[in-house]
Structure formats: C-alpha cells, structure tokens
C-alpha cells in the first residue's frame, strides 16, 4: 500500500524563500533518514512569490506502507533516544514563519466496482 504524507503550509507574506530554505536544510535530511521520500513540492500562487501575499507550500512524502509509516513516527536518534523532541523543535521554530499548517495522510483510492 502506498501511503503519502502531505504537508500544506501557509507561509507569512515575504517569508516563503526563507521557509523553503529552512525546510530543505533542517527538515528534509532528517525525514529522509527516517525513511520518508520526497515525491514532490509545489506552491501557490504558482511560479513565484508575490510581495505582501502569503505563499502556500505543499510537500508530498511517501513511506513504505504501514510499517514505513510507523518507522518514521517512532524514529530514534543515532544514540537510540526518542527523536520526537527534535521533530517538535523544528515545527515549533518553523511555525513562527507560518500562518497555518496541515499535515494529512493520503493513500490510493479504494478500487470501485
């Protein structure tokens, strides 16, 4: 089963470039170490940021089924300690740049008859 994790992040006006850099350098490496694979990243308004206008960023991740989902959820640091506090620190810090945020779990649609 394919499981997707979709981050939808509304960034404060004029902070989008800063947020994208922070996500790429502070979040992506750890997520990949936890087995998440970045399948796509998009934004709206499209093409470029506009001064004074919030930008909504979308990051779509995949994990290897339910086992892969729990592996990233229950991840440990190299020393064996719980990683959740590092993950929380990232989101608390980065949320200072955002107006709102959603994270949703997605899957393929069930087959219809």
């Amino acid at each position: 089963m394919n499981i997707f994790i979709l981050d939808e992040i509304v960034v404060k006006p004029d902070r989008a470039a800063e947020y994208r850099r922070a996500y790429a350098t502070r979040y992506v490496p750890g997520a990949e170490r936890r087995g998440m694979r970045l399948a796509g990243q998009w934004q709206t308004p499209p093409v470029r940021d506009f001064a004074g206008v919030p930008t909504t960023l979308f990051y779509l991740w995949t994990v290897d089924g339910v086992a892969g989902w729990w592996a990233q959820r229950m991840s440990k640091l190299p020393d064996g300690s719980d990683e959740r506090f590092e993950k929380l620190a990232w989101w608390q810090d980065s949320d200072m740049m955002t107006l709102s945020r959603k994270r949703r779990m997605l899957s393929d649609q069930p087959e219809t008859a």
Partner: protein
Amino acid sequence: MFVSLRLITLPPQREAESAPLASRLREAAAELAGLRSCWIAPVSPVAAINAGHVVWRMNFATEREALAVTLDPAWQGTVRGLLDGANVSHVGYRVTRSAVRPAAGGIWRALVFRVMPHGFPDGARALDDALLLMPAHVSTIRSWALSRVSVCEGPKAYTHVWEQEFDSLDGLTGEYMAHPVHWGVADAFFDAEFPEYIVDPQLVQVIGAIDRTIME
C-alpha cells in the same frame, strides 16, 4: 462506575518482587470495603511505556467509596506497608463512555495520558471523537472505555485513560496498530509533527494478562 487505577513502580533493587507484591496486594484487597471488583497483575514488559511493575485496577460504585478506601483499616494496616518505598501513580475516573463485551482471557491495555493545556477544550474534544472511531472500526477491540480523569496523584497530571481489552496481544500489535483510522486519523493528536498535537509525550502504556473481562 468509578475506577481507581494505580501503577506501582518498585525501586531498582526490588523489581523482582512484582509477582509476590501483586499476590500480597490481592490478599489485602479482599479485605477492603466498598470494592466491587479488583484486578492486580504484574505489568507485561511487552510494549510497556512508563508503566511501572504492578498494575492495580479497582471498580467502585462511586467516587466517594474510591476516595475512602485509603482510610480503610485493611489499607492502613497492610496495603500502606506493602506500597512503602514504591512510587505510585493513581488516576481515578468515572466510566461514562464504554462498551464491554464479557469474555474469557486476553489482555487489558490502557493508555494514560495528559492533554496539554493548550489542547482544551477543542483539541481534547476532537481527540475524543477520533479515539471513539477506533472501536467502531478495529474489530479486535472487544471492550473499551474512554474516560476523563477526576482524581490524579503522582508526578504527572494525567487527564485521560483509554482502555481496551483484546483476545490476545496480536489484536493490539496487529489490527489496532495497522488500521488506517489509527495512523491516519487518531494518531495526529499524539504525533509531534502534526498541528493537532496536544498529548504530552510522557504517557503511560500498560498491558496485563487477564483471565476474564475486568472492565464492568
């Protein structure tokens, strides 16, 4: 129905005493007034989180009886001495949302947790709704109760107790964990990566073997 749930943590040099302590507490509990039923067991080390060594769950008709039990002569004379030197976390809660299907042996599991202050009231209500989806969809849950804590003694101000009974541990580690209503809906409140995150990570998961339904 009012439940008193105690989690007893022994000091390191006494950890091997959990089974005899459970046995002696059972004998003492038989003398306590007001007790409708009682279950005491060593904590299963499987999947235990901050659960201590012995779990003691008592059913009372009322909160008043539950609060009075520590003044009972049997408690003062015996139980207090048995618990001397141990850390005891105690939560008391009225059981209002539950469904119990009496059955034979299996496992009882409880998640005891604290919703952080910023989670009240809206997040806590949404969390309740999400957890209550689980017994409707996870077929291995044979009994359950979701309760708000009204009495709390110990180092942590727990707010919720989420109990289930399963026919076997597989019911918890299998379908319960793998079901999309768990990882796709309810877990958001426990996962530090979600904006819905409201549950203090210092929670308790306690599991014990039962030979019959202990949830009334």
